[in-house]
């Protein structure tokens, strides 16, 4: 029977699995040349593409695919990183840990080149789901480094020591005591990885690696001439200007507040 405390995580895993499997089955609407390049209307809110497909449906399809593919890559990366990180923490300071450290450092430096070399050799045959394996093989040090340090810190906590003192086996110790305490530290990392993979899939799709017709990169590639035809990029300049303005206003407000604090502290000191 599954413990009550693990139910939330089990539900999370099931939802992620459904998302991954479900997104693989999502296909874009078929081309319809009779409705090519239509303007936005009630029937097609964002208009239609030159091949006649509904733009909104294409966008939704691309987003679901990107989410599913990135989730798959994130899952693989976390599983590999978690396993290697936990092994490294278990054998901290011993040869297995040192070998892991060296490989992680090498991948940190040479990972992108290795990925590029792997992709160059297999790019014509690879699809976005297989691409996730390559990404995970390069990205695991991000996870394993955090897992190792967290596992070492948690394993010195009093309740883990107390469990060891009762005679709990290492695997049970890791699953029952170390992992649950680590998950809140791992969650932000997973979200970061997920976002990074979405961007990476888009970029690789744009240059034609691991491309699926429904992918974000393919859509961007396809839309190049459209983007160039209208100066949409000016919108991003405006956005950047707005961000800078808000950032500057925030900084000025913060400095003014700090200044007021210093002045009041000075006054207080003089009064004393």
């Amino acid at each position, binding site marked *: 029977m599954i*413990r*009550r*405390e693990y139910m939330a995580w089990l539900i999370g895993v099931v939802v992620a699995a459904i998302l991954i499997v479900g997104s693989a089955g999502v296909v874009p609407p078929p081309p319809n040349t009779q409705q090519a390049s239509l303007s936005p209307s009630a029937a097609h809110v964002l208009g239609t593409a030159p091949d006649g497909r509904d733009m909104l449906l294409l966008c939704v399809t691309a987003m679901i695919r990107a989410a599913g593919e990135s989730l798959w890559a994130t899952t693989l990366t976390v599983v590999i990183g978690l396993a290697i990180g936990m092994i490294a923490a278990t054998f901290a*300071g011993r040869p297995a840990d040192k070998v892991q450290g060296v490989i992680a450092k090498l991948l940190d430096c040479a990972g992108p080149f290795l990925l590029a070399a792997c992709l160059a050799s297999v790019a014509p045959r690879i699809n976005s789901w297989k691409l996730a394996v390559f990404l995970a093989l390069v990205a695991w040090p991000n996870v394993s480094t955090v897992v190792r340090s967290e596992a070492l810190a948690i*394993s*010195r*906590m*009093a*309740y883990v*020591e*107390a*469990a*060891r*003192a*009762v*005679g*709990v*086996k290492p695997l049970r110790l890791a699953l*029952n*005591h170390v992992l*649950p*305490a680590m998950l809140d530290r791992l969650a932000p990392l997973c979200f970061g990885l997920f976002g990074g993979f979405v961007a990476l899939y888009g970029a690789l799709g744009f240059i034609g690696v691991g491309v699926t017709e429904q992918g974000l990169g393919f859509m961007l590639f396809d839309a190049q001439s459209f983007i160039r035809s209208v100066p949409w990029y000016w919108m991003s300049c405006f956005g950047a200007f707005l961000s800078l303005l808000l950032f500057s206003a925030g900084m000025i407000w913060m400095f003014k507040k700090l200044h007021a604090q210093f002045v009041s502290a000075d006054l207080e000191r003089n009064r004393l």
Partner: protein
Amino acid sequence: MKLRETESADGLKPLLEVNELKVGFERDGKSICVVDGVSFCVKRGETFCLVGESGCGKTVTALSIAKLLATPPAQWLGGQILLNGQDTLQMQERELRQVRGSVISYIFQEPGASLNPAFSVGSQVKDALKLHRPDDATDSEIVRLLTAVGIAAPELRMRDCPGELSGGMQQRVMIAIALASNPKLLVADEPTTALDVTIQAQILELLQEIKRRLGTTILLITHNLAIVSEIADHVAVMYAGQIVESAPAMELLRRPLHPYTKALIAAMPRLGHVTEKLIPIRGVVPSPNAVPSGCRFHPRCTLAQPDCSQTAPELKEVEPGHWVRCPYWQRSAPSEK
């Protein structure tokens, strides 16, 4: 060196024998010895107290019994620990897991930190039962254990997470977990330090009750001499990684012989002695990597002689069952005169 007879009157071997234990910690490639030649023996059914200031090596000694120190940085540099006749320092991890819980159980200082905040207390007691008594890992047995340690409404409390319990209740749960496996030796490492005075008394009473009812041997680590007077049968006083005095509890508290033990007792506040001035021990406990030469206590000792900084004194039996690590134990400190 055997501090006490290795066989009790009933012919039984002591439950725990620690002989010349040396424990070090690796730092910058060097090994710093924090427990240096500690020897003591705990008889079955008694309460043995290890007393000393913070950092003197009490906890390291206690954790060494079940090899619970993380290696690295800890290193066992020598000695022997015979627990129920088996040398735990020579055991493999698999054998140690059998010993942990079933022969020796620990109660730690901070019950709040020693319980996993993610799981209910019932499931944590159940985990301990599953390890050593899998057939008894039932809700009724959990309720029985929680009742035995004085937790009211155990059927409800077993579903609570540790954060929902008070410090005293948490310590009771820790004791229930420790008792779940019916250990022969219960090591209580400052079990009352994090609790308020009334709860301290209840926990000490509970430990005595366990000893009376189950015959469990207790090794109590504390810096509080009041607790020693309350519960101990035999006491060993530690200073800077060494035992400096060892004697039956009442004997040691009535007539301490080592200058450090005398100073510790003089520094202890007592009810009914409100006009008496407390005498602090001058100086600080030496750092393990800067231990003074000769007698480790000599820089703080009021009886120190010129040769105390030259020669390291041996632990000697000066009276039957009373061991002291000081050649000048018969002299009195100026303040005592």
